[in-house]
């Protein structure tokens, strides 16, 4: 099969870190804080690499949007088995206001440029919990979507997706090309082994700017304030 898979990987504050709000209440403290790949993105990479190992897809491309540091996240995806990476350079104020709408426009443009057959994303990021990028990307491309996937099976040129929904499990069949978003029970992401970390250094990461893709990353949203909940679970 000659399919190419794009996998989105987002660099977020590590899940184990205690989040602190900045004193000026414009956001959370990120300087010097441990960052890692969004856990749902790890699951997405794992699924893509599994498909490649089953020889159902030919190439896995890891994509991340952000400043120089996101290259670490792309390298982790490469160490897990992705073939190459694309770093979409977004920094400074643009990066602070980068959200699902802009990212989905970037992914839609990349999908066309790279002639991707499948996009796998995490269902949501653990920093903003938006749960929008996958859905928006599918809409912009007018592709079918299989979100909250807990099982993905490739059958000829169709995708069977088992989705975790409130009422239970829903199984759908969608045509390729499609967008899939990974939920928790889709798989258990592998460790990057030491030899693979070393091999990943030789894999290529290409840099691209949003403007090159014809995407405007300015935000239509303005963050008014960010504050800590006084007590979790109480309004």
């Amino acid at each position, binding site marked *: 099969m000659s399919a190419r898979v794009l996998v989105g990987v987002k660099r977020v504050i590590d899940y184990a870190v205690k989040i602190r709000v900045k004193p000026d209440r414009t956001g959370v403290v990120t300087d010097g804080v441990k960052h890692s790949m969004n856990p749902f993105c790890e699951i997405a990479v794992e699924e893509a690499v599994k498909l490649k190992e089953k020889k159902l897809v030919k190439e896995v491309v890891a994509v991340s949007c952000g400043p120089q540091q996101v290259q*670490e996240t792309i*390298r*982790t995806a490469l*160490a897990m088995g992705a073939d190459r990476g694309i770093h979409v350079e977004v920094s400074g104020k643009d990066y602070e206001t980068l959200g699902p709408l802009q990212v989905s426009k970037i992914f839609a443009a990349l999908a066309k440029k790279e002639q991707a057959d499948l996009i796998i994303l995490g269902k949501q990021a653990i920093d903003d919990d938006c749960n929008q990028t996958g859905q928006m990307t599918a809409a912009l491309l007018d592709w079918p979507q299989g979100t909250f996937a807990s099982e993905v099976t490739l059958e000829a040129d169709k995708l069977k997706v088992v989705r975790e929904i409130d009422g239970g499990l829903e199984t759908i069949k969608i045509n390729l090309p499609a967008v899939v978003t990974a939920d928790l029970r889709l798989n258990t992401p592998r*460790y*990057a*082994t*030491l*030899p*693979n*970390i*070393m091999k990943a*250094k030789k894999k290529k990461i290409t840099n691209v700017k949003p403007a090159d893709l014809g995407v405007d990353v300015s935000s239509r949203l303005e963050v008014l304030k960010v504050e800590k909940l006084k007590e979790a679970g109480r309004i």
Partner: protein
Amino acid sequence: LFFIYCCIERISWRLQKTKALLDHTNTLSLNLTELTDQQKEFQEVARKFAREEIVPAAPSYDKSGEYPFPLIKRAWELGLMNGHIPEDCGGMGLGIFDACLITEELAFGCTGVQTAIEANSLGQMPVIIAGNDAQKKKYLGRMTEEPLMCAYCVTEPGAGSDVAGIKTRAVKKGDEYVVNGQKMWITNGGKANWYFLLARTDPDPKCSASKAFTGFIVEADTPGVQPGRKELNMGQRCSDTRGITFEDVRIPKENVLIGEGAGFKIAMGAFDKTRPPVAAGATGLAQRALEEATKYALERKTFGKFIAEHQAVSFLLAEMAMKVELARMAYQRAAWEVDQGRRNTYYASIAKAYAGDIANQCATDAVQIFGGNGFNSEYPVEKLMRDAKIYQIYEGTAQIQRLIISREHLGKFKQ
């Protein structure tokens, strides 16, 4: 006049000492504060594996003494083992510094598991430093193809520190050597696929140590090789330690390292590369003691405060932190020196001696901070105390390290 003379004397002595210090620090370009990206990634993998997979499994392996093969196999799959094996034998050709980073993280999880893994490095080191191409390809190559273990077979019931006093005999007969003798306290003794063996080839008691011994590679399934029972030890209980009897064991001459009489130097040379990782292991244990004690001290209350807020306890933690940081710096220096191609015996001995001592101190202090709970097997720190003791004994006892350090120090001073 006499006073001025004394002042000049003192100033010139101080200038000499300062110059020596400056010369010393000018050669230092080791950056201890920032690891390379690759080193950080390696450390991340080792840390994740240790904390998520070794830590939960360690207590039951300690109770049962069962060999932790599933964990070792996992470590092998992740590339956390056999890091020193050169690339042309299928390994990663890691330096000692990188290997130490990984070792410290694994030891944090369980030093029994880490020792079983480290014994591989110790057994392989003589082959890595002294093996010919055929020997390296054959015996190191197979370690990267499947998760096999090997062992370093030198100590005997009657000779530990006094390596030159070993009695195992190897007699040349045609194209073979016939070996008879008894080895003891061999880590991985019952699990190894092959051993590095040190035996005496020159029977003349007047022959010097540097010529009397030969290093061999012995396949474990050679007829006459008899591992004894698994020894029940105080700590690191899941590690497999045995006596091994060699009865008319025939070793082909192709398995001699370098040549007859070269064994002692090879056996000792391996230590310069394996002592820093052992020091790193002891540091990992001390770090675990510090973290467990700190966590507990921030939970347990006494006299209306968290015990961490009582100075007696916070001072204990501070001293533990001092020791851990210094032990880490010591092994990193020793590892870096040998990676730069320099003789690191002085630094390796200092690191091993210091780390072994502080591991015991930190483990004891951790039990103290836990109080009555620390003495109990439901809490993790009593295991640390039992596991720590061996770090002052194996790979050169604390006393032997002091012998080496004083010899090196006096040697430098006399120059």
